[in-house]
């Protein structure tokens, strides 16, 4: 397989998202319809979806979605999972045969709880225990890749056009309060199923249109904190940065946006004193987490979603609202196709986060 730098596959990138503030569960066919409009931004080498609120019957359990290359890999990974988790339910993820989706890996789903005794002796918080287990599997068990590890949410992704993958994964049979989608394979890199978007850790998922030039700086820094960037593509590191800043350092999503898409120094210099001091502090403390280069991202998290452009706004992004629904997409047409009538439509400026949360809960934003 040719790797990054050895091959270039030109094309655009597309992202799309739907969120119901009231928590109404939206069927997955909606997001498929939206992302399909931007077919020509993709290249058929990757696509995927994240749905939140899709497993209400198992909402307190971690849902692991896992790719396996061989039956042997299943055995090795399950051995690890059974040692660390109480596996309440396991099954293959239901798929329907699709003429355009080929060479799929084994795709399994596990609803799990950390073993009490194991968790206690680890002296870690539950989330950290789970995150470390996921990172361990992905870094050390050959042929096994946990690509989704949150609660009451799931990532579905692979090689192909997103609309075909959506049908393959039967997303019309799932419903959730939030969906995100991505079309095309990670920038400049040949495809494998695990390398498609969304990237996920715990409840965080990221879809990304762009190509970040700070990848190496970001990777070097974040790997000091136990994360492993195995996938050789830029979006993976954004996911870990979000986890690091929001879950571990308790930054709000507004603050997180000010770190990864920090304003320019000359703009900071013109700000009122208090704001200037805070942003100066962020830029100094988290200088290695500044993300440069073009990006527009949708970050899914428990109870909410954040849309963010790089500070120069080198990628397109529009946001639309209709009653309790909020829509996000690289192109307006991808919103209009599922909601022709909008109460409001706007393009967030560079570095300006749009954060939407469920009406009746704060999510894990705070």
């Amino acid at each position, binding site marked *: 397989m040719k790797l990054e730098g050895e091959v270039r596959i030109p094309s655009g990138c597309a992202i799309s998202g739907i969120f119901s503030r009231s928590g109404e569960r939206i069927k997955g066919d909606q997001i498929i319809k939206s992302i399909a409009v931007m077919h*020509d931004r993709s290249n058929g080498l990757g696509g995927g979806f994240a749905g939140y609120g899709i497993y209400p019957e198992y909402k307190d359990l971690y849902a692991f979605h896992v790719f396996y290359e061989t039956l042997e890999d299943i055995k090795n990974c399950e051995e690890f999972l059974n040692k660390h988790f109480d596996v309440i339910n396991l099954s293959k993820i239901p798929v329907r045969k699709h003429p355009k989706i080929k060479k799929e890996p084994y795709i399994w789903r596990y609803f799990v709880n950390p073993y009490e005794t194991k968790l206690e002796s680890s002296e870690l918080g539950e989330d950290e225990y789970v995150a470390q287990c996921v990172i361990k599997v992905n870094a050390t068990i050959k042929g096994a890749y946990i690509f989704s590890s949150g609660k009451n949410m799931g990532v579905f992704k692979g090689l192909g056009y997103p609309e075909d993958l959506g049908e393959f994964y039967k997303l019309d049979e799932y419903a959730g309060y939030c969906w995100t989608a991505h079309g095309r394979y990670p920038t400049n890199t040949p495809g494998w199923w695990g390398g498609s978007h969304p990237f996920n850790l715990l409840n965080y998922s990221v879809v990304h249109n762009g190509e970040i030039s700070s990848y190496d700086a970001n990777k070097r820094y974040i790997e000091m904190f136990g994360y492993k960037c195995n996938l050789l593509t830029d979006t993976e590191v954004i996911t870990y940065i979000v986890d690091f800043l929001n879950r571990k350092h308790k930054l709000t999503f507004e603050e997180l946006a000010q770190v990864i898409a920090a304003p320019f120094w000359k703009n900071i210099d013109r700000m009122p004193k208090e704001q200037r001091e805070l942003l100066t502090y962020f830029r100094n403390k988290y200088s290695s987490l500044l993300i440069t280069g073009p990006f527009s991202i949708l970050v899914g998290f428990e109870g909410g979603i954040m849309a963010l452009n790089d500070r*120069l*706004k080198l990628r*397109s992004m529009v946001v639309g609202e209709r009653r309790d629904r909020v829509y996000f997409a690289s192109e307006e*047409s991808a919103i209009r196709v599922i909601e022709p009538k909008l109460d409001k*439509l706007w*393009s967030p*400026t*560079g570095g300006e986060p749009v954060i939407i949360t469920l009406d009746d809960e704060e999510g894990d934003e705070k």
Partner: protein
Amino acid sequence: MKIKVNLMHFQELNKLIKQTPDLFIKLENCIGQRYIASGLSEKEVVIEGTPGNALAAYLSGSTIKVYGNVQEATGDTMDEGLIYVHGSAGDATGYSMRGGKIFVRDNAGYRAGIHMKAYEDKVPKLVIGGKAGSFLGEYQAGGIIVVLGLGEDETPVGDFCATGMHGGKIYIRTNNPPEHLGEQILINKVDNIDEIDDLIAEFCNVFDIPIERINQKPFYLLTPNSAHPYKKMYTHH
């Protein structure tokens, strides 16, 4: 010719537009089809819905009327013709345009008029009714950009306005002219706007806006501060 576009692929749609002998074409319910009317001459295309990126790229004399918003790179490298947008425009509107006119009733995204250029009688014009995003007129080499700021009390242009501008003109109608412009840009309040009178009249006529509204605020003119602002940068010693 009338086409109900819906989810038709852009290649098919553009083939229909190019092949028809009809001089008037109406497109209903456009959903993101790219390159509509690219390179097209001598026709009139009326579009309802949301046309896709690079609408009217390389336009060669046709008139395009959009009832809705347009996406990115509308009028990319257009040579001649007219585009009326009854709504807002996305990023890079008028990208590298070298002739013709674009009128946007509401707002334009980032980098409107980036790399506009002019040559002899080819002087492209871009008129934005509301506000423009950052990097308006970035690397502008020629042509005229007008931002009317209708309904905007604050500066109707974003940061980094006219960065790298080395030719052409930007007129901004506002009580709050942009601050922190680059050193190579001159900004002056102007009383004489004869040069853009016709553009304003056309804008008001097309979008049915009383011309008196335009007179309520002053205009500022941005120009590069010498004939060769980047001469030093490009000169080898």
